[in-house]
């Protein structure tokens, strides 16, 4: 990759506190188009708080989040009006929850789940919506004859893949993922990671992945940020950070991984 023009997302001095406690503080990074950034850290280190701030689910106390919008270029999402931000949330952004049930409508069929975002941006032709839904189910390896089944009838791995299809159907440019492989067994995890890696490369997505699983970031992420107690303690290329950790906590984290 030669010098990319502008970053897709610029994060400047994000701080979020819960009363006297720090959620996350002094977070700065740039995310370039097509780049995947991983955020790792122990439970309570502020990685989910950070992700929710970035995705607009939480309002940070200070800082700037500049997103390179299609129409107006770089824009501070925190200063956007709510309709604008929600529109981004339906079109250019996607959010994959750890628990698929949080991101799916359990009372609505798989096809309806995938079609919802299309209908939300104005698709009004049933045949086309359904065709696209089936196409996307196929891309996440869900058989076409399951299109009218409700997510409750799906296994955990299928639900997670359905959630991904539902999020990617409008062709977003930035995907937020909160522990996308959490709660899945290893073989299903591997398949999901394979799928995610394929989709990210194929669609040229930028992604921010929060996880505590170092194997996931090793596979998916180009760059890595390590968080501890609300601070980013180390950042760099994924392989560099994992193979040659500088900060004491990162060293602990890397050495804590169980070897088979």
């Amino acid at each position: 990759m030669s010098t990319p023009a502008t970053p897709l997302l610029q994060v400047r001095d994000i701080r979020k506190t819960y009363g006297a406690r720090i959620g996350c503080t002094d977070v700065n990074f740039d995310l370039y188009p097509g780049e995947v950034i991983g955020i790792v850290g122990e439970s309570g280190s502020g990685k989910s708080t950070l992700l929710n701030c970035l995705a607009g689910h939480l309002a940070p106390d200070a800082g700037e989040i500049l997103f390179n919008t299609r129409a107006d270029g770089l824009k501070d999402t925190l200063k956007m009006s709510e309709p604008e931000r929600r529109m981004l949330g339906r079109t250019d952004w996607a959010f994959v929850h750890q628990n698929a049930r949080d991101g799916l409508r359990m009372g609505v069929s798989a096809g309806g789940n995938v079609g919802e975002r299309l209908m939300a941006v104005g698709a009004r032709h049933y045949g086309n919506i359904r065709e696209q839904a089936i196409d996307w189910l196929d891309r996440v390896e869900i058989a076409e004859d399951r299109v009218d089944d409700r997510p409750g009838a799906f296994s955990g791995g299928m639900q997670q893949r359905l959630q991904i299809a539902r999020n990617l159907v409008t062709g977003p440019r930035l995907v937020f993922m909160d522990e996308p492989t959490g709660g899945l067994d290893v073989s299903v995890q591997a398949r999901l990671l394979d799928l995610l890696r394929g989709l990210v490369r194929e669609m040229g997505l930028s992604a921010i992945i929060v996880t505590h699983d170092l194997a996931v970031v090793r596979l998916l992420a180009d760059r890595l940020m390590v968080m501890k107690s609300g601070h980013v303690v180390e950042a760099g290329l994924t392989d560099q950070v994992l193979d040659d950790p500088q900060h004491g906590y990162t060293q602990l984290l890397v050495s804590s991984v169980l070897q088979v």
Partner: protein
Amino acid sequence: MTEERPGVETDAYNFAYLDEQTKRMIRRAILKGVAIPGYQVPFASREMPMPYGWGTGGVQVTAACLTPEDRLKVIDQGADDTTNAVSIRKFFERTAGVETTEHTTEATVIQTRHRIPETPMTEDQILVYQVPIPEPLRFLEPRETETRKMHGLEEYGLMHVKLYEDIARHGEIATAYAYPVKVEGRYVMDPSPIPKFDNPRLESPALQLFGAGREQRIYAVPPYSKVVSLDFEDHPFDPSKADHPCALCGAENTYLDEVIMDDAGGRMFVCSDTDYCATRQAEGHRGAQSAPFTEAAE
């Protein structure tokens, strides 16, 4: 409103049951509803001397609209003689002393549950609907905070998810009543559980008011407002009805009730609007199963 009126116990009840301050509060909600067609205006619904689900919202709206000169008609599923209609009519006869009628053309205020009268409405009439659940998005998004935001930001994609589900499961839009509509190109509204056959007639010269007592909401469709039933380009809205003529008056274009006649599959279809059907029969129209004209005249 304290003048003596024959047959009305003015000491016992204020005109039309509710006190004047309450009626004023409801009228303010109605005015706001008329100003913003389809928008659900919260109001402080009162306990009424009838159970929720019997039309407490409609009754409060009617009470706030009634003047002593009004003539009231109450219908339930199109009929004037069902329990709900009779009890509400009696209620206003007793507490307001207004004239009542069963004829659509003579009424100035019509309170209705689940139907729009077949006889075309006029500019001089007010149609009051009883609404059980005013929120069209409720069954898809249970959070009221979220549905209000969706109305505010005009995010109505979810409504089409419901219609999508219908087609996916039944091959067509199977929603037959409470069919969602968009009013004046802005708010998506639940037209109360009227059959979708009635939806085209929501565009009416009469003022239409919707009252939901338990849910404490009032909304309105002002006269001649544009009301569009939601649909898909390849599955257009179809105001369907049973494919029969009325067995009593022979009408071809009215909404019909199916009446089971015996336990051997016998059935008949009759107009659900009893006043319309009776008027047609009095004019000499006859259906397949109506009594012969000569006998009735004797």
